[in-house]
């Protein structure tokens, strides 16, 4: 089985938000909810400024607090290693939402937990996630970390990749490269 990861090249994010809406349309996300976001961080004082924009989403952690917190196994690890939610089993207790250190989950208007699925249905068709496909800056790169020749493997090897809240010990599968600021994730 592949080991899917996403690499986010922060330098190449132009903050266009195409990913945010492509994700919503692809996955039929309800009005007012989002599975991914673009954050902006500015440091310094006029006119000595630095800024980075980066997208954030579910990290599909290898050690996933949401799976541990779920009482019904609705949140589970799929065969391809991604973290998924089986809606039928979700009782809407919101424990996973609280357990997630990344604010990646929300409760839908129907009362079930929801989050980024890495576009599981597209992966099955051999396509990349919708956000990756439409990313104008080619800031989001997706692929198989077990394939040493994949773009993601090459990038992670070449750059000093970091993850969000490394100290949380969740081993995220979303990696950031070319960050301007150490930390800040």
């Amino acid at each position: 089985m592949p080991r899917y990861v996403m690499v986010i090249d922060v330098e190449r994010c132009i903050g266009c938000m195409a990913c945010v809406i492509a994700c919503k349309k692809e996955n039929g996300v309800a009005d007012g909810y989002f599975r991914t976001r673009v954050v902006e961080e500015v440091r310094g004082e006029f006119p000595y400024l630095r800024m980075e924009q980066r997208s954030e989403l579910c990290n599909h952690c290898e050690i996933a607090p949401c799976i541990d917190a779920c009482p019904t196994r609705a949140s589970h690890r799929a065969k391809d290693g991604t973290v998924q939610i089986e809606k039928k089993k979700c009782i809407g207790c919101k424990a996973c939402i609280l357990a997630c250190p990344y604010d990646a989950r929300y409760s839908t208007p129907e009362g079930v937990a929801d989050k980024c699925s890495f576009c599981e249905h597209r992966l099955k068709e051999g396509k990349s996630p919708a956000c990756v496909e439409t990313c104008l800056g080619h800031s989001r790169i997706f692929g198989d970390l077990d394939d040493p020749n994949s773009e993601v493997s090459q990038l992670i090897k070449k750059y000093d990749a970091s993850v969000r809240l490394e100290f949380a010990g969740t081993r995220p599968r979303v990696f950031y490269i070319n960050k301007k600021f150490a930390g800040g994730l």
Partner: protein
Amino acid sequence: MSITRRDFLKIAAVTGGVAVAGTPVVKSVLALGKKPVSLPQYVPTTCEMCFWRCGVIAKVVDGKVVKLDGNPIHPNSRGKLCARGHGGIGLLYDPDRLKTPLINTGSRGEGKFKKVSWDEALGYVADKMEKIKEKYGAESIALLTHGTISTYFIHLLQAFGSPNFAFPSFALCRGARDTAFEITFGEAVGNPERVDIQNSKVIVLIGSHLGENAHNSQCQEFAEAVGKGAIVIVVDPRFSTAAGKAKYWLPIKPATDLALLLSWINVIINEGLYDKEYVAKYTVGFNEVASAVKEYTPEWAEKETDIPASLIIETARLMGKNKPSVLIHPGRHTAWYSDNVQRQRAVAILTALLGAYGRPGGIYLNPKKKLEPVFLSDKDYPDHQKPEIHKGNYPFAGEEGLTHAIVKTTLTEQPYPIKGWFTTGINIIKAMPNQRDTLKAIQKLELLVAVDMMPYDGVILADVVLPECTYLERHDDLFTVKERAFGISIRQPVVQPMYDTKPGWWIAKELGKRLGLEDHFPWNTFEDFLKMKCETWGIDYSELTKKGYISFPESEKPYISADNEPKFKTPSGKIELYSKELKDKGFDPVPKYTRHEQPPEGWFRLIYGRSPVHTFSRTTNNPSLWELMEENTAWVNAKVAKRKGLKNGEYIVLINQDGVKSNKVRIKITERIRPDCIYLVHGFSSTSKLLRKAYLRGADDQQLITRYDIDPIAGTVGMRVNFVKIAKEV
């Protein structure tokens, strides 16, 4: 088995034409008794969420558009769409769309609409047009227009006998840039601009905020260049997204850009950093430029621009060192001050001195492909009896006309009255400066017709509103794409029109019929016309409908080489650093610096720009995009805010020099702007109650632009000449 024509018609009727997605259904033995599964249909078309015209592939399930994606073979999209492109679904299914023709039964602008049939609405309009023609002449009807619909209504207007039309995209947007490039290089820089950004080693953005203006393919190439380590130099009073990628952010004092440009030219000439061979071979007027810029030293420019002389020299040297792969981005919205054309001329001259025109990483050359024009009809337009007024008295005004010339003539009735306006694809309130003049002008009209998809501010002022269907529901004229290679892009319906709405071509044709101009529309459906056009051009129509885009790769000749020498269509046949043409018409043949007024103490210059999720005022009500940005914010420098005791996110109002007060707007307190400016994203605070999401959300920059300059060369407008102060919302 042979299919007769009659059978074919039956089939066509069932499937609803070639392009419109039907609903194929899969019924397998296993699924018997269960609800059949609909297979998605994929229909290519061309986007209209902005003017970039990307190739789109619509995914349609059960007659409903569920997703829009970029067409991989279209050079403007390359398989990707921006947020607005994806948000086209929000336009299609916006519950606030115009749904039927409307006639205003109250006084002008009152918006007391009654729903009427197309027949009644068109009959009413045609009748009024004939009356105006009889009383004042056909020239007394003018058209303000933007986008693809313009083709049909300019045609109708000219067939009717009036030459008076204007696009806001000239005077209020890119006219200055195009004029300057035509004067210098003999041709405009194109749309999309022919910038070879992915190969640039140095990218200079002057007031252009790529990324925030989400020009799809250009953003893709910009990110590519940044990824490859291009040096980005951003000149902007605001720390834009692009500034976040820049090695040099030069927070220039607004209105002094020409000083910086002339000073860069000064350094590049003084230090011998220009491309000597290129300049000798392709240009005229180098000596005149060299002597004209002598006075514009970096030390002088520092005092004007607030940019240290050392940085001016350092950045100029970087350009010189990396020539010719330097892109001085020609910009797009260049309607800033009274000297727009001269400022853009300086951009063009700098580009030429660096040898970057026709060279990798600079500006690539037009593709080598020409198709003979195919007109909507072969019938000649009648000669108009009176002189055209739509270019004002500006010697270099473009064929696209000047919106302010039409407003002015309407107000003054000189040299003759204008009594009817058509507004098609334009929101006249948000697009044009000085709303008071626009409102006064429409009170002088006997007919105001709006053709659009949404009840925008300007649309609800009309006597008659004719609802156009969206780009996902109609055919339009073919698009000729002049990217590196030449290509043809098609717009075709992906679903049937919702409500009682019609395509622009149909509305123009039906009006033509009622005006006795049916000979000017010698085709039944627009598809018939497109097929004929394709046949003339030797293009396979059916292939075009399936692929959405057809490319002519052999036309790609982007760079100058021994067998690809450029031809400059200027009077001298060379790049005109010095323009005799300008001199003969009484203008400076080489740009000279003019000082513009700066805001008095306690006032701020109002600057404005774009958000990547909205297009002008056209998308602020789009449910898909509205939730990404519901209202704009007023950017205020952090130190200024602290001094004034303002809190981030609180509502303020802006009051301009003429006492005009904005709607309440949230303040964004930020280090990312100079202390002497306030920035608004353009297009917010709709005054149309029928736009339930956008109504009075945020502040309208255009409302505060009561004052504007006019560039005497081409009649382009300067809109960055308004000053505002902050008042607390009470």
